[in-house]
């Protein structure tokens, strides 16, 4: 098969470095998604889709509202 894959720049070291960089990006994506860093941006995107006329709250406001909701609706953690 010919095409872009046949001639990768940097040789084997370059491709190892690229693989490590890809892995690091994946870990970063996973950690930030799991812990919640991306939640505010997702909320703003969702708001723009469904209620484009509403001004999105600031990050601080978003997190205050979210924690207030969590206060009112607790989730369990298992044993």
């Amino acid at each position, binding site marked *: 098969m010919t095409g872009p894959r046949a001639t990768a720049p940097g040789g084997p070291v370059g491709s190892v470095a690229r693989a490590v960089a890809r892995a690091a990006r994946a870990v970063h994506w*996973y*950690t*930030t*998604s*799991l*812990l*919640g*860093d991306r*939640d*505010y941006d*997702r*909320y703003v995107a*969702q*708001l723009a889709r*469904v209620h484009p006329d509403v001004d999105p709250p600031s*990050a*601080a406001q*978003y*997190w*205050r509202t*979210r*924690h207030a*909701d*969590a*206060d*009112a*609706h*607790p*989730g*369990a*953690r*298992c*044993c």
Partner: protein
Amino acid sequence: MVARTEVEHVRTDPDLPPVAVVERGPVPPARRAVLAAVAVLGAVAWSVLALARGEQVNAVWFVFAAVCTYVIGYRFYARLVESKIVRPRDDRATPAERYDNAKDFMPTDRRVLFGHHFAAIAGAGPLVGPVLAAQMGYLPGTVWIIVGCVLGGAVQDYLVLTLSVRRRGRSLGQMARDELGRFGGVAAMVAVFVIMIILIAVLALVVVNALAASPWGVFSIAMTIPIALFMGAYLRFLRPGRVSEVTIIGVALLLLAIVAGGWVAETDWGQDWFTLSPVALAWWLAAYGFAASVLPVWLLLAPRDYLSTFMKVGTIVLLAVGILVARPEVQAPAVSSFALRGDGPVFAGALFPFLFITIACGALSGFHSLIASGTTPKLLEKESQAKPIGYGGMLTESFVAVMALVTAVVIDQHLYFAMNAPAGATGGTPETAAAYVNGLGLGGTPITPGEIEGAAQSVGEESVVSRTGGAPTLAFGMSQVLSSVVGGSGLAAFWYHFAIMFEALFILTTVDAGTRVARFMLSDSLGNVGGPLRRFRDPSWRVGAWVCSVVVVGAWGAILLMGVTDPLGGINTLFPLFGIANQLLAAIALTVVTVVVVKKRLYRWVWIPAVPLVWDLAVTMTASYQKVFSAEPRIGYWAQHRAFQDARAAGETSFGVATSTGEMDAVIRNTAVQGTLSIVFAVLVLVVVAVGAVVVVRSVRAGGLPTTEEPDEPSRIFAPRGMVPTAAEREVQELWDARARARTGVEARS
């Protein structure tokens, strides 16, 4: 002529790309070869574990047996459950898509949701139970943890998640009311509440036993509170939303706290302040539970949650890698004499039913059904993802349990029993403990008091004798494994306290989250009573919240104090209650699932939930029966109660391990409470099962009954079915990505 895989693109709207990909056809030969190799490796591993006689087994075989069984179980059994009972339709919108509000309903990437779900279900249960179960040798526990999970626990989690997804993310209690009727629903709710109380109390007891007389441990755990408060304030006022950043800072501070604990424990003032008795620790824990449940979430609970999520994933990976690198040799026998005779010191009773009761969360956990019907069903992108998340999540927890068992069985046998036998048996000092365990008939070299003391010193503790509850044993085993990989014996004390810290983190998260949930259940129920109590329904009414918190903390705190002051050893008497309660909740969840399966007339496949249900009922009812009616005081709560009562009435001032009338009175009180709780649990579950049986009969007679599933709505998003997308799914994903790019291009231009 080679049969090709047929790929079907499922569309709900001709203007949209396909919302699902269905692939049918024979398994390609390469994959078949891999599965066959996995099956062979698994069979070899099980043979090594089961047939080793006299030679020492390497711990790595446990990992192979577990992983290979999980792969085969997931590929074949989970797929059977999926195609015959679940029958997911990805052209149907899940509640996450349908009610998407970017808060509690939000389609979440399946890999991230797996992490959330696993962090929610993983706790101290699979760590503590298997350690105690090691009393019976390594084989019975391993078989139940792996097989019980594949056939029971993972099936329960998967089916409860599926049920909840089709019912707009309803909780188990609500589903019980919908499918079983009002009476069954109320019994289920009461059972959930009572079971939650005992769960919190016993886990708190595990922490108390791990931290008693350990200034290092108390200092490190105490430091997690200011660390969490700092993280909470940082996120609230300094950098809102930078969760990963603050979590990394928090973890660094945590590691510093563990190291600092070593320094503090060497100083006089450190030992003065942080050496706490079990009773003092119990009061501190109750105070913590109350504070955590009334303080705002952002201040304490949320930061602790981030810390424990991070630590959970990290430490479990660390332990798995450690076992694979260190490859320790197993010291315990396959089946010990205690398994055959049922007279072991760690927990009383025969292998059936008490092995299964002790392991509980590692194989089948009723509490998971609350999580599987909690936030996860509201975040699920596609119905077919319930299999990797629900079934796969429980398999991962079972793997954690296997590793916990491994750390317990690689410790020298004599040392294991010196650590886990109650103080009444060991005598409390290294000399008496050595004499006791050497007289147990364990075989091998007898242990010397010097070796027991040396073990304690090597991990920076005053004593390891009768440090019951499983946590110190797990920490000791982990420190043995990890220090042979990194750092040598110099780091053994750090690894020990690292393991204690991470277990305490898990447990304290369960304690504070559980207290909150129980408080809400209580205030909701009080509010439903109506009249003047109606105000309890308002979550912002502070007085109501405080009153309910006091009641909940008072309930579990009382049981905790009872366990801590019990002359018979709190873990020995209370852990069976914890296990029975957890398994009874599983019986309730499986009853709801079985009733739904019967209502949908899937009679040919009702055995899938019914077999674990019947087994679970057999185990828990036998255990409850023995705990209530057994004439042997070691097993039966009421027999113990009567024995001590008779001794008291006869004017004796000491009896058995009780050395004073005060201690005798404590045993009399405690056994009455424990006996009553056993009866209450058993009766509640029998009620739910009986109601379920009535509904089943009614449904069969009527030729099926309607269930409370939501009406279908077509889906308009795409997501892969499993963790790794197939080639066909990647193609469809590319169509959606191209469409999204074109649309943002159009919007930017207009």
